[in-house]
């Protein structure tokens, strides 16, 4: 039965066919990449040339425009991964497996970037690369969780079985992350408190906020582009594995 002759289904069900998803989203890749590039050019121009220095931190404040978006993504990607894990466990959606697997390395990447830029920023302003402060510690623990999830994926030969197990662990981790965050805050605090999203309005002037928001969007779109590409690659990789297995079977028989 070909795809044309199957009865009309909702887009949700049709997306369950990974090939369909790839076919639909491939045309999106280039526009997304170009949009990301434009946002980056605009954001970097604002961040590097058209925004004032901080009166205390001087030029180092510009690290913020990379640091804050990566820190935001490090948590956002875990949310995306948990949503995919729910998709795997509740609906057994085949695409959710793939999306969950594609998100983990990206999450680890952006978490590393957040930690790295944070260390570079901490050296001139706090006088140390690393401090066991609450937020930094919880980000480090988050990185360990990402790496653990990647290790778990790699430990399985059968990726279909791995998906459900990794999904369970991802959700256990999602339950734990708020607890970890709370506990390390209780344990030690040096990092400045949240200064953008607050009930009484942001404490930063608009001249710093504009580039920050553009960079937030740029990084988010960068993630979406990389994410789509990673999903496509994973679908193709699985197809190759299946074809190889089939070829080996034919050879054996």
């Amino acid at each position, binding site marked *: 039965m070909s795809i044309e002759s199957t009865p009309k289904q909702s887009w949700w069900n049709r997306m369950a066919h990974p090939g369909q998803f790839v076919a639909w989203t491939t045309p999106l890749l280039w526009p997304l990449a170009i949009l990301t590039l434009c946002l980056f050019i605009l954001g970097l121009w604002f961040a590097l040339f058209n925004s004032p220095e901080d009166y205390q931190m001087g030029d180092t404040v510009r690290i913020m425009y990379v640091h804050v978006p990566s820190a935001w993504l490090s948590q956002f990607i875990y949310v995306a991964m948990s949503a995919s894990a729910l998709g795997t*466990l509740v609906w057994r959606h085949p695409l959710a497996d793939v999306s969950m697997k594609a998100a983990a390395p990206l999450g680890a990447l952006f978490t590393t970037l957040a930690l790295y830029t944070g260390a570079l920023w901490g050296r001139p302003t706090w006088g140390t690369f690393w401090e066991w402060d609450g937020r930094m510690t919880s980000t480090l*623990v*988050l990185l*360990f*969780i990402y*790496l*653990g999830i990647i*290790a*778990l994926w790699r*430990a*399985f030969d059968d990726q279909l*079985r791995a998906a*459900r*197990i990794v999904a*369970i*662990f991802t*959700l*256990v*981790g999602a*339950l*734990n992350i708020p*607890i*970890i965050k*709370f*506990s*390390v805050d*209780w*344990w030690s605090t040096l990092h400045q408190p949240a200064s953008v999203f607050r009930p009484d309005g942001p404490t930063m002037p608009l001249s710093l906020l504009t580039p920050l928001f553009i960079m937030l969007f740029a990084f988010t779109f960068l993630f979406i582009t990389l994410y789509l590409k990673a999903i496509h690659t994973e679908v193709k990789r699985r197809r190759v594995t299946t074809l190889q297995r089939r070829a080996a079977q034919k050879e054996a028989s």
Partner: protein
Amino acid sequence: MSAFLALLGRELKLARRGSGNVLTLVLFFVITGAIVPFAVGPDQLLLARIAPGMVWVAAFLAMLLGLDRLFGEDQDDGTLLLLRQADLPLGAIMAAKLLAHWLISALPLILASPVLAVLLAMDLASFWRMLASLLLGTPALAAFGTVGAAVTVAIRRGGLIAPILIAPLCVPVLIFGVGGITATHSGSALLFLAALSLMAVTLSPFAAALAIRSAED
């Protein structure tokens, strides 16, 4: 209930027959703690200051070591397959496993902890607090361990994966556990620790059951 008790009895009997394992675990716990003075010097004041942390690290490592025994043998000899088909819900089976794991690999450590308290120059007041914090905190470690072991049961060479997976999850237990021993904020830390243990022990059997069930599909 009788099936639950029978399963618990089986686990304990297995542990008693091969009691070398339990003894090794306790020995590991004591030796890990006793090695600290060699590394940092025999200064009594310093030792007393870092003793709570060292006891918790030793307990944490010892409990990680006992993990592969949790489901490993059952998976090898097919018991796990039988358990999955038992009348008892898999969640209850996991709860029995969790309880047995705590009795076998946490309780002996708590019983051996006075040795470490003496070796690490703890005073009596902190010793009692340590006992309370170990009693309240180890159930959470056992619960996370059960999930970790269940998640890795299908991996043939998964020996090191489970500790890597659950170590980040155990961070709050260590924080509140050590916080409960040091004198300031001791009470609130112990309450958080108890809450954490209650939550982990309640939820983890279901997560473990789900993992075991999907490992064999």
